[in-house]
């Protein structure tokens, strides 16, 4: 299960690169993804759909050991996200930031809207 860490400006400006390096050094499979847009939670680290907010390199071992000290629950259900009606960045794309490898199962999950076709 990859550890998802944004590489947009707000994440990098708050130290996400160091956090990503620390996860990689600890042997985790790190995927740099786009941001959910919740600047105040960055660096936001997503493990198995669960967000961990304002993570520093010092928290990495804890998170990998299953600590929920910084956990904010499922990111897709965060009120800031759940209350939005996304028209262009449709829920069917959450939280995909690059196309899945050919033949890979669709990583669609979270708040996917029923009946919506994912375009890719």
């Amino acid at each position, binding site marked *: 299960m990859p550890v998802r860490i944004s590489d947009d*400006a*707000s994440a*990098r*400006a*708050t130290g996400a690169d160091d956090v990503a390096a620390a996860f990689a050094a600890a042997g985790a499979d790190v995927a740099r993804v786009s941001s959910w847009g919740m*600047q*105040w939670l*960055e660096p936001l680290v997503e493990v198995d759909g669960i967000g961990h907010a304002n993570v520093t390199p010092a928290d990495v071992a804890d998170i990998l050991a299953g600590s929920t000290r910084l956990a904010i629950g499922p990111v897709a259900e965060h009120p800031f996200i759940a209350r939005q009606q996304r028209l262009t960045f449709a829920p069917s794309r959450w939280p995909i930031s690059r196309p899945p490898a050919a033949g890979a199962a669709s990583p669609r999950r979270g708040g996917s809207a029923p009946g919506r076709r994912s375009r890719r």
Partner: protein
Amino acid sequence: MTTSDNGDLGAIIAAHKDRDGPLLPILQAVQEAFGCVSEAARREIAHALNLSRAEVHGVASFYHDFTAAPRERPVVKICRAEACQARGVEALMPAAERAAEGRAVLEPVYCLGLCGIGPAAMVGTRVHARLDEARLAALIAEA
């Protein structure tokens, strides 16, 4: 600009000359390669693109990132726009100015898109947020 630079300048111009809207990519590449877009370079770019020197100068002087001469000191851009003001950037400035004295140039910029997590600053291509006095001073010292 020395003659030996002219070869590189010519190569930069040739690389972008035939694309749509060649001026900005050329100015960016020249600034990157030489640390400035000198008067001589502006002249040569204008000539190559069949533009007036005034046109090239107008574009080059509109964007603060294009400089006529190389900068002697590293530049730290500190956001002084509304959200960063609300988040206290002005209170950091005396310490920032002390840290910059004799080693870096502080430039105000107006919004780095990090409004929710200001005060924000930029050094080179890197942005930094949630700055306090100590972190901003460290940034300036390392710039």
